[in-house]
């Protein structure tokens, strides 16, 4: 049973065209000019209960617009959205009590009041039963380390603390679905890790369905099982994170630390040196063309070797190539999220 169903979603915006220069600016002020822009162009996907889905794409790809339509704050130009049987933009208030939204760039906490005050207010707004509220507060305090600052006014908190408090705030009413909009933006490595662990735990324990938009690939790799890539308003990939690595990440790099400095080395065909530093060389090859074992055997026969490391391509560099159009994405993968996920 799919919890989120999106069918042929389209959103057009009317955008104000600003003309150049001072005269143009005054002109735009008096006679505004508009043109239509298609932000989301025929997107379809379904998400099952308990899934964690990363929603990625370059800036301006249409991610936020899609998420806004899912939450009900934006009406689509055409197409259908269904969340647990509800149409979010028609039944926004009803939908609202079943979802949680976290914006990494702004806080919904009351600036001048201690964190706990916002929590209490949310308890009343969402009519969270006392018992559920107490349990959640305890769980979140422990896992997110809220205890240290729960009685401090929000304006005194660090970015990481604020983010943790915001995540807790959006989960107090046990939503079925939670939308994260760049939840780790601007945080240090430790804080990011803590948040990711918490998200994973909550997903497992409470079965909350999660949708992430982020630019941090580590977020996706560590928390999401599935990934939807959007560009120019259309879906260009929908499948598992592992699969995209297998499909596109065909190159491997072998880092070899030699016993001495070799200016030139003799390699089997299909392997090339991409970088050299002192006695280290980076050798790149395609994994279908060259067997790693024969490459290593060949090298150890000819040279003295101190150390060997095999590097898989980083998901980040794969994505970068997709954005830049370097990788011709496989059409058969697009929109195939369902099929890919059936285990």
């Amino acid at each position, binding site marked *: 049973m799919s919890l989120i169903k999106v069918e042929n979603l389209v959103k057009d915006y009317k955008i104000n065209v600003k003309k150049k220069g001072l005269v143009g600016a005054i002109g735009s002020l008096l006679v505004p000019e508009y043109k239509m822009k298609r932000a989301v162009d025929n997107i379809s996907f379904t998400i099952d209960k308990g899934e964690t889905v990363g929603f990625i794409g370059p800036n301006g790809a249409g991610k936020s617009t899609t998420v806004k339509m899912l939450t009900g704050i*934006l*009406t689509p130009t055409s197409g259908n959205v269904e969340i647990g049987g509800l149409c979010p933009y028609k039944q926004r208030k009803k939908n609202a009590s079943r979802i949680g939204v976290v*914006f990494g760039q702004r806080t*919904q906490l009351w600036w001048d009041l201690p964190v706990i*005050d916002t929590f209490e207010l949310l308890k009343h707004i969402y009519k969270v039963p006392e018992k559920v509220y107490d349990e959640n507060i305890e769980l979140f305090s422990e896992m997110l380390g809220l205890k240290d600052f729960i009685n401090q006014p929000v304006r005194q908190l660090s970015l990481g603390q604020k983010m943790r408090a915001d995540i807790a705030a959006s989960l107090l009413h046990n939503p079925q679905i939670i939308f994260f909009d760049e939840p780790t933006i601007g945080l240090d490595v430790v804080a990011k890790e803590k948040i990711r662990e918490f998200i994973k735990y909550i997903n497992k324990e409470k079965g909350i369905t999660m949708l992430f938009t982020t630019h941090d690939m580590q977020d996706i790799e560590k928390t999401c099982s599935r990934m939807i890539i959007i560009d120019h308003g259309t879906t260009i990939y929908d499948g598992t994170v592992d699969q995209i690595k297998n499909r596109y990440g065909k190159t491997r790099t072998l880092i070899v630390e030699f016993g001495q400095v070799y200016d030139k080395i003799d390699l089997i065909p299909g392997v090339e040196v991409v970088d050299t530093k002192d006695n280290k060389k980076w050798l790149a090859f395609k994994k279908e063309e060259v067997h790693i074992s024969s490459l290593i055997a060949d090298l150890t026969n000819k040279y003295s070797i101190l150390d060997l490391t095999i590097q898989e391509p980083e998901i980040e560099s794969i994505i970068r190539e997709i954005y830049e159009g370097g990788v011709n994405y496989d059409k058969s993968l697009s929109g195939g999220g369902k099929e890919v996920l059936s285990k």
Partner: protein
Amino acid sequence: MIRAYLEVAKKSFQNNITYRMDYFAGVINTIVMIFVNISIWKAIYEEEEVVGGVQFKIIMAYLVLSFLLQNIFTMEDYLIEGRVTTGLISSDLLKPMSFRLYVFSYNIGSLVFKAVMQLLPAMIVTVALFGMLPPFSASMFIYFLISVVLGYLVLYNLNFIIWISSFWFYFTFSLVTIKDAAVMILSGALIPLWFMPQWLYEFIKLTPFDSIFFVPISIYLGQIPAEEVFTSIIKQVAWVAVLGLVGHILWKAATKKLVVQGG
């Protein structure tokens, strides 16, 4: 559901306590403003006992009441603008509660804070300094209290229209300034409307402005004939309704714009 809005008002009350300096400044400001204005009128009354048929002690009572009311009628003019420009309005609309009632509860929280924490000390000091006329009669005092509530609602609904315009203008400082000036002059906050030229007075009576401060204070002082008190109050109710309706239409348009055009 009422509970949630009460809770918002409570948090807003709490929020007001945060800034101690601002709190004391508010009390002192009210006292100073009353003192300055009474001094100005004193100079005017130096020459004659009665100006325009009004005794000095009535003017004094008028000014004290006006400035005390102005203090508690102060609202958060940039609350909605802030939510719109930061985009937080999206989170607000994604709460299972009415955003309009949320804003109203927020302002009520501030009102209660000001009434309890600022009005009382300011009142005690000014009454001790300048004395105070008792209400014209017990029944007029009751009407006064009703009229004050209605005056607040007229101002609130008028303000709401200005606030909501931030959905289109994003930056409402100029509009708020114009509104403040209009209220200051036309509502009788600074100068009792008796002293306005007849044509201006007639004009102001066609606007909602006199309903804010002038009507309740005049009722307190017995300056409105008993048979006209009722119509004055009905007029206030009418303005609350009309401005409320305009606000409602604008709110519908604003949310429509938001859900169609994005934040």
